[in-house]
């Protein structure tokens, strides 16, 4: 018995309904934040979801590590905060959640169907198996080495270095090591293997292999989101994301430095 979001007059929700809806909104917002959506998208999607499910208004405070929502309906209102941890980019989930909030705001789903849909999105495993990801990421960074003017031996070395670094990263992420340490360790492994281009004398341009094989760790999404947030007026989130990106870059540098010091390569 959900009313269309477009209708101006909405039936006041009961306390239970409001509790349920704010819970759904927090869940959706939490997933969006965890998987790499920018602040504006989180706020808009959550707002659409909440008003689509029958609230008159939602005030949403988006921070990079927590989410607070006040939902209003009639004379009732409820406020809840949820902690947001873990960062792993997952565009598939962002796409699904985006579609969900659109369908809800068009009045296609009530709150029970929305909960079922959210449960399904939350349960969904990654689209690609880990070995395919390892291979594709290896190929991507090897392609980078070509763009940077590397020769074919460098292409091969970069592929192997990146693929192994990706495996290391997957393992460490699974073991929930600190994200910066994970990046530093992966960069170290990538640098170590990439430097073989120098000490096996496979190529004259080991520096191309070194720089291309750590690109899988480059904080592209945090930095792009940082700029987006700053321009869109989410100042503190923009600064936070920017600093995160900077720290990740520094972690890459530390890992590489260790590899360079150990092997003497990298010039």
């Amino acid at each position, binding site marked *: 018995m959900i009313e269309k979001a477009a209708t101006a007059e909405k039936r006041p929700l009961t306390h239970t309904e409001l509790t349920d809806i704010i819970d759904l909104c927090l869940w959706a917002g939490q997933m969006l934040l965890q998987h*790499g*959506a*920018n602040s504006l*998208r989180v*706020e*808009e999607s959550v*707002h*659409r979801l909440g008003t689509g499910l029958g609230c008159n208004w939602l005030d*949403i405070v988006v921070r990079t590590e927590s989410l607070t929502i006040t939902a209003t309906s009639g004379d009732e209102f409820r406020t809840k905060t949820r902690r947001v941890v873990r960062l792993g*980019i*997952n*565009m*598939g*989930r*962002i*796409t699904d959640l*985006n*579609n969900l909030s659109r369908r809800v705001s068009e009045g296609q789903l009530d709150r029970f169907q929305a909960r079922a849909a959210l449960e399904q999105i939350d349960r969904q495993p*990654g*689209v*690609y198996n880990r070995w395919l*990801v390892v291979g*594709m*990421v*290896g*190929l*991507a*960074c090897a*392609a*980078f080495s*070509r*763009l*940077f003017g590397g020769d074919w031996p460098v292409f091969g070395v970069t592929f192997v270095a990146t693929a192994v670094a*990706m495996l290391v990263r997957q393992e460490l992420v699974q073991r929930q090591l600190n994200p910066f340490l994970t990046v530093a360790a992966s960069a170290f492994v990538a640098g170590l293997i990439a430097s073989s281009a120098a000490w096996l004398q496979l190529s004259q341009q080991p*520096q*191309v292999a*070194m*720089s*291309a094989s*750590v*690109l*899988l760790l*480059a904080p*592209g*999404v945090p*930095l*792009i989101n*940082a*700029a*987006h947030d700053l*321009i869109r007026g989410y100042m503190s989130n923009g600064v936070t994301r920017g600093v995160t990106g900077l720290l990740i*870059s520094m972690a*890459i*540098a530390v890992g*590489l*430095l260790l590899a*360079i*010091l150990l092997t003497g390569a*990298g*010039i």
Partner: protein
Amino acid sequence: MNGWLVAQDLLWSAVAALGFAVMFNVPRRLLPGCALAGGLGHALRAVGMELGLPLEVATLVAATTVGFLSEWLAKRYQSPRIVFGVSGVIPMVPGVLAYQTMLGVFELAGLINLSTDPAADELVRTAVLGIKTGLVLISLALGIIAPNLLFRRQQPVV
């Protein structure tokens, strides 16, 4: 720059964009769009630089094109813009510049020893590399959200 070189550039950057899209768990049906955006963006930048544009400006032009392309792809495939935008600019991320900046910093700190130039030259070179890295990154971000900034001014949903 002849057509063959541009085609090669396009191919390799499309592969790079595709690989990152897979890592970001982009749904299968959106992968071709990501590869297209990545390939076109980087090839366009290469052409721009060949025509004499500075790296940063060529990047801004190419990233803005990727931004508009993502807008169109997002409408076509009913999906968030960011999927195509991020995958599309990934090939343009200044990896080598960042790497050289980092080496310069370590050199200045005396951790590694690559050149015998005076420290002052070293400092200037590293600073220039760092500034370029930053400017390219800003160009990328501005380019992706350009359509959003220019044409979606005020319709406050929130």
